[in-house]
Structures are given as structure tokens and as C-alpha cells.
């Protein structure tokens, strides 16, 4: 028993030493790289930021790796997309991480959807309607205006946890929002050819993008959110797309290629392949270049159709 106690103490000491922070930076863990990028801008030199997802994943199927539990165990604050987007991995990882600082309702749990105007809030919750998100569609990260609200939530959340740095966060936020506003003004001008164009995506995650840039989200390849398509659904979708002259089929890069391509070919729509997050393609290095990539890819497709 004595030997066991000694071994336990040694392990604790070794572990603590291994994890002793090299400096006193705020350890920020974000669920997606989009929020991580914003946190770097807003937190500046005060923060050390890491992301659970790399950007190529489907947010609803991020593998639940134990190594994420140790990452979260050391986090001072957690940034999440919210609206139950991370339901497949985050609740279980939070439990495994044993970090009361970032549990739901703790100050370190920063839900970036707080100020976002949420679309597609269901009026009826029923699994017959697919994998619903009771709080609304969580894919607002594809809309730069909604992400301004996320940036505000990050700055407020960091300020709540570290009031002594509030002024720095505010200053950095203003500078970042100025950059984002300039980009948004440019994107809104560039997006003019997209107005009124109809799109079908694999999953309903282009809603915010479509709304922002005047496109119409016509339907999804999935039968319902999260439910794989059936042959009869594809048949009906194709017929309806032809009738309504849908211009674009979007394959989010984490969904299989074959079916989206078939649907596009069968209906004469243009196939567009888009990342859903920063890091989803090498060109999308940060949030601004991510929106740039998505918008320009979409524009190229519309202009060539």
C-alpha cells in the first residue's frame, strides 16, 4: 500500500512538472479553427490557442480521442460554436477532462453563438425530422456577419474570465472587426452575381452563407439533417431541381463525392466543393481567407455556368 501511495505521488509530481506552463499565457481551446483564429486576433500575446478539430472534419462526427480530454483538462477557457453543433464529442470529452473551469455554465465555457441571430429554429422537435438542433441551425460560421457576433462573444468571454485584460481584448476586437468589416463590404460587392441563385447542399450547413449572399438554399442531398439519402429521395430531389432550375450543388468536403457529382450531372447544376471550416483546404488559412475561398469558388462556378 505504501509503495502504491509513493507511486501515485510520483506520478502526480511528474505529471504536474510535465504540464507546468512555460509562461503564464491564457490557455484557450476552441472546438473549431475558425474560433481559434479569432481568439488569436482578440487575445493577442495574452493567449495560447489550440483547436480540437483541424477544419477538415464533419463537426457532427469529430472522433472522440482521449488526447482531447487531456487538452481540455489544461484549458483555461473553451470556445465553442454552440447550438449543440459539437454534441457528438464535446459533452463526453468535457466529462472526461475533469476541468470544472470549462464545464457548461462555468465562466470558462464560452458559447460563441450567444449573440448570433439564429436561423432555422425548429418549432417542433421530432426525430422524424432528422438530427435536429433544438436551438437552431449551428452552421453560422459560414456567414462573416454572424461571426462578428462570435468575435464579440469571444472578447466578452475572455474579459469575463480575465477582467484585468478587458481593455486589451476590446482594442484587439475593434481592430479585428474593422478588418472583418472591410472584408464584408468587399464580399457583399463581389457577391452580386450570386443573388437569386439556387443551391442544394449535402447537409443544411449553407443556410447562413446563402442568406448572407442572397442565394436560395433549395434543399439537401441528405434525406433530413444527418440522415443518409435514400434512392427515392434523390429521385425526387433531382426532379424538383430540374423543375426549379437549381444552379449549384455544394459538396461540403467532408461528405462523399460520388453522389453529389451524380446529382449535379443529372440536373445540369454546377458542382461546387467547399470546406466548412478554416483549415478545410490549404488556402483557408484563417477566417478571412476561408470566406474568400468559399465566395470565390462559388462565384467561379456561377460565372462559368
Amino acid at each position, binding site marked *: 500500500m505504501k509503495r502504491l501511495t509513493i507511486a*501515485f505521488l510520483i*506520478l*502526480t509530481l*511528474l*505529471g*504536474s512538472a*510535465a*504540464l507546468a506552463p512555460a509562461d503564464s499565457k491564457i490557455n484557450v481551446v476552441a472546438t473549431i479553427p475558425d474560433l481559434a483564429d479569432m481568439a488569436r486576433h482578440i487575445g493577442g500575446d495574452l493567449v495560447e490557442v489550440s483547436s480540437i478539430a*483541424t477544419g*477538415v*472534419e*464533419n463537426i*457532427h*462526427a*469529430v*472522433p*472522440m*480521442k*482521449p*488526447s482531447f*480530454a*487531456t487538452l481540455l*483538462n*489544461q484549458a483555461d477557457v473553451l470556445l465553442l460554436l454552440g447550438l449543440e453543433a459539437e*454534441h*457528438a*464529442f464535446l*459533452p*463526453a*470529452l468535457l*466529462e*472526461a*477532462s*475533469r476541468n*470544472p473551469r470549462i*464545464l457548461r455554465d462555468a465562466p470558462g465555457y464560452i458559447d460563441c453563438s450567444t449573440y448570433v441571430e*439564429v436561423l432555422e*429554429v*425548429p*418549432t417542433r422537435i421530432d*426525430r422524424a425530422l432528422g*438530427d435536429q438542433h*433544438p*436551438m*437552431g441551425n449551428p452552421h453560422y460560421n459560414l456567414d462573416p456577419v454572424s461571426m462578428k457576433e462570435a468575435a464579440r462573444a469571444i472578447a466578452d468571454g475572455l474579459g469575463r474570465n480575465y477582467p484585468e485584460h478587458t481593455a486589451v481584448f476590446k482594442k484587439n476586437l475593434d481592430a479585428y472587426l474593422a478588418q472583418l468589416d472591410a472584408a464584408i463590404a468587399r464580399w457583399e460587392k463581389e457577391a452580386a452575381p450570386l443573388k437569386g441563385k439556387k443551391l442544394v447542399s449535402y447537409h443544411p450547413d449553407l443556410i447562413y452563407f446563402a442568406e448572407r449572399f442572397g442565394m436560395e438554399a433549395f434543399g439537401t442531398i441528405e434525406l433530413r439533417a*444527418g*440522415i*443518409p439519402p435514400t434512392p427515392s429521395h434523390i429521385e425526387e430531389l433531382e426532379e424538383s431541381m430540374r423543375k426549379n432550375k437549381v444552379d449549384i450543388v455544394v459538396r461540403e*468536403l*467532408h*461528405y*462523399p463525392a460520388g453522389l453529389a457529382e451524380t446529382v449535379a450531372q443529372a440536373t445540369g447544376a454546377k458542382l461546387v466543393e467547399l470546406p466548412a471550416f478554416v483549415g478545410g483546404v490549404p488556402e483557408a488559412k484563417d477566417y478571412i481567407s476561408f470566406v474568400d475561398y468559399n465566395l470565390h469558388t462559388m462565384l467561379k462556378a456561377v460565372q462559368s455556368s
Partner: protein
Amino acid sequence: MGRVPRRVGMAIAVLALGVAALPRGVRAQSEELRRELEAMRKQLKQMQEQLERQQELIDKLSAEKQAPAAPPAVAAKPPEAKTAEAAAADEERLKREVTENLMKRLRPQLAAANKTFPSQFNPAIGLIVDTVGSYGSKTRGDFELRAAELGISASVDPFARGYAIITGSNQGGFDVEEAAIVTTSLPYNLTFKGGRFFADFGRLSKFHDHDLPFVNRPVVLDRFVQGESQADGVELNYLVPMKQYLTLTGGWYNKMGAENDRVDNTVSRDLSQFTYLGRAATFFNLSDANSVDLGGSWAYTPEVKIDDGASRTLAGIDLTYRYSPLSQASYRGLVWGTELLYNQEDRPVGGFPTTSAAAATSLERALGVPALAAQTRGSPFTLADPTSAAATPLVFKRRDTTGLYTYLEARLTQRYYPGFLFDYAQDLDHVAGYTTAYSPYLTLWLSEFNRLRLQYTRLEQPGLHENEFFLQWTVILGSHVHSFRDR
């Protein structure tokens, strides 16, 4: 002319403020309100246009009226002041009307939301229905409601959460599979658990039947652990604070094994008759897509009454390799899982006498072995009966036994997961040699909550060769959380 749009703008701002002030809990209702507000916005726009037209008309008429003789400068002031006053009054009235209208619509919904608040404290509830149809060359066919499993869970307070799994089956009655309290805010990365739960032994021993990757529990787990690793007791788990994932568990239980009838769960016992557990588990991230989980478990009972008071040691190593390409994780992947178990205890020479036919039948059925054949042959699966053991003096001998299972499962699409399971387990009493089983299977995920599975099993042991076919249908109703334990 600019006043009317300003009034409309103010009205919309008041509406927006009203909506922004709503708590998150009524967001769904506010979405409906948002739509209504949108309709009101359209109405207001129409009003605005109408007012603008009227204003134009008034301006035009006024101009015509004023044209013949310009009024004196002093006389021009009072109408202007009057117009400003009227506009302010209009604005005030519009604000009041909008607020009243908004509140009129909000009050019933807020009241309705308030009525549901007491139920907000109710735990999350889910029900899992697991049914299996089987047919074997010797066991013949059967449809079995294997489990209707009610799961409830909620936070207890800021310091703990609780959960319970209550199962009913066609065996009759209800059984509390788990009912446990887990701490949530202990310092030093510690978690303490108490009640009835699945002890932290190995990997698949902690899975409920319906969560297994195949239809039946591997033979080695059923024989050595005896069902799920269910235990009444306490457990302390420690996440070592370092970058490499490492958890250590210590457990203290009455006994381990949901179907372990060799130890009575309901009587008090000496400290030497409890079961003690130690486990270490770690994880290696070989690359973004490749990873390995590795664990070692050790359960020790210093004194097992039925084994003539000798000790029992059950140890196991579990290894799980996963290939999960990040960008295709929902429709591509591979899992290789294996567990090797070692059991050491005193067993009667020739095995325990088998008089508890009903209990034996139940276990045989769980293993997919014909009960009749087992009883007549002196099966390795038979249960001990303490009474008969006491009646006939038995000669005990120390027995070392091993067993393993290994399976490979591929994820070909979002729906289809084919796999193959191999089982090997020695007889605990060294009477009936060893058992092997080969089980190819195909899982079809209709959705995350609706699953069909087909399995064929070829079971082989001395004197018994059996072919069995299974069709399993499992659905989940209500709340379901992706748990870390079942990964």
C-alpha cells in the same frame, strides 16, 4: 418627410429590444415572434408608404392653398410647433401600441414557458429497445426482446451527477443494471463513483449488450467476467495530469459480473471477500487518422467462499486500433479490437456439480449454446451451486485459464459496417477443452438511432458444432448521449 421612416425605425428598434431581452430558454418562441415581427415590419412599411402618400397630398394641397397669399411670418410658427408636437405624440402612441402589441403576444407564451419550468429539473430520459431473432441448427428459433432499457440521468447538484439504467426483458421483471452517483468537481483530476455501475475492467465489459459491435457478448467475457462488469461498490479514477493520456482506476466491490452467481451480492462479507480492482489505460495518437487505445486491468478477490476460500485473480489486456480519416470519419474507418483475459482460481476437480438447471439454461442461451447438450455433456458454462457443493465434499485445484476475442470492423459507407469476430476461451475447470467461435456480421445504420444487424456464428467445442443466425434490431428513443465509456 423623414419623420415617418424614423418612427418606423424606432418601432422596429423597440420590437428588436423586446426580442433581444428574451431569455435563451424561450428562443424557440422568439423565432416564431421574429416571423410575426417580420409580418408587422411589412405592415409598418405599408403604413409608411401610405403615410408618405398622404403627406405628399397634404403638402401639395397646402402649397396650393398657400400660393395665393403668403401668410405672415409670425403665423407660420404655430402650425410648425403643432406639427412637431403631433409627431412626438404620434411617436409616443406608436411606441406604446407596439409595446402593448408585443406584450400581448409574449405574455401567454411566457406564461406557458413558466408552466414547464418545474419539469425542467426532470432528468433526461431515453429508452433503448433491443430485439434479437435467432435460429440455430440445434437451438432452433426464437424471437427475444433482449432489453427495453430505460436510461435516466441528471445533475444532482454542483458536485455530482447521477444516472440509472433500468432494464426489462423477456426473462421477466425489471433489473437495475446501473444506478450510480459520479462526482463532477473533485480536485486533482479525481472522479469518485458509487452505487451500482459497470466496473472499469477491460473495454467491452463496460458496454451494455445493445452497444456491442456485434450481437452477442464474446464468450471469454461471458465466461470469465460473466456478463457486463456490473458491480456494487465504489471506484476512484484519476486522470494523470500530463500531455500523454493516462488514467488510473481503483475499485472496491461486492463482486464483479452481472451474471456472476458464485458470490452473493446481498449478504455482508469480510474485507477479504470483496473484489478489488486496478486499471491503467492510455492512448497513442499515431497520426491524425491512426490511434491505439491500450489498457490493463486486474481484479483480485482474496477469498472466494465457493472456491474453498481461495483467492481469485482476473486480469486482462485490451487493445483497440482505430483508423478514422478525419475528413471522412462519418463514412470511412476501421476498428480492430482485442482483449486477452487470464483467470486464476481454485476450481473443483471435474467441475462444480450442475444442479441449477434453470440458471445454467439462462447462461447457455446467452452464449448461444444448446442447454440440453450442455447439461448432458458437462459443459464449461455451467454454474456452480453452493448447496450441492457443500453436500458433496469437493477436491479443489488451482486453475489458470485464458481466453480472448478479436474483431475487425470496417466502415464502408455512412450505413454499412461489416465485421468479423473471433472468440477463444478455455474451460474454467479444464473439463471440456476450449471453445472457439467465428462470427461474420453486417451492421446497417438506418440512422444514428435505428440499427439493424445480421450475424452468423459458427460455434465449436468438443462434442458441439453449432451454426446460428441472428437478426438484431435496436432503436433509441428520446435522450441519448455519446458517452466516453462506449467509444
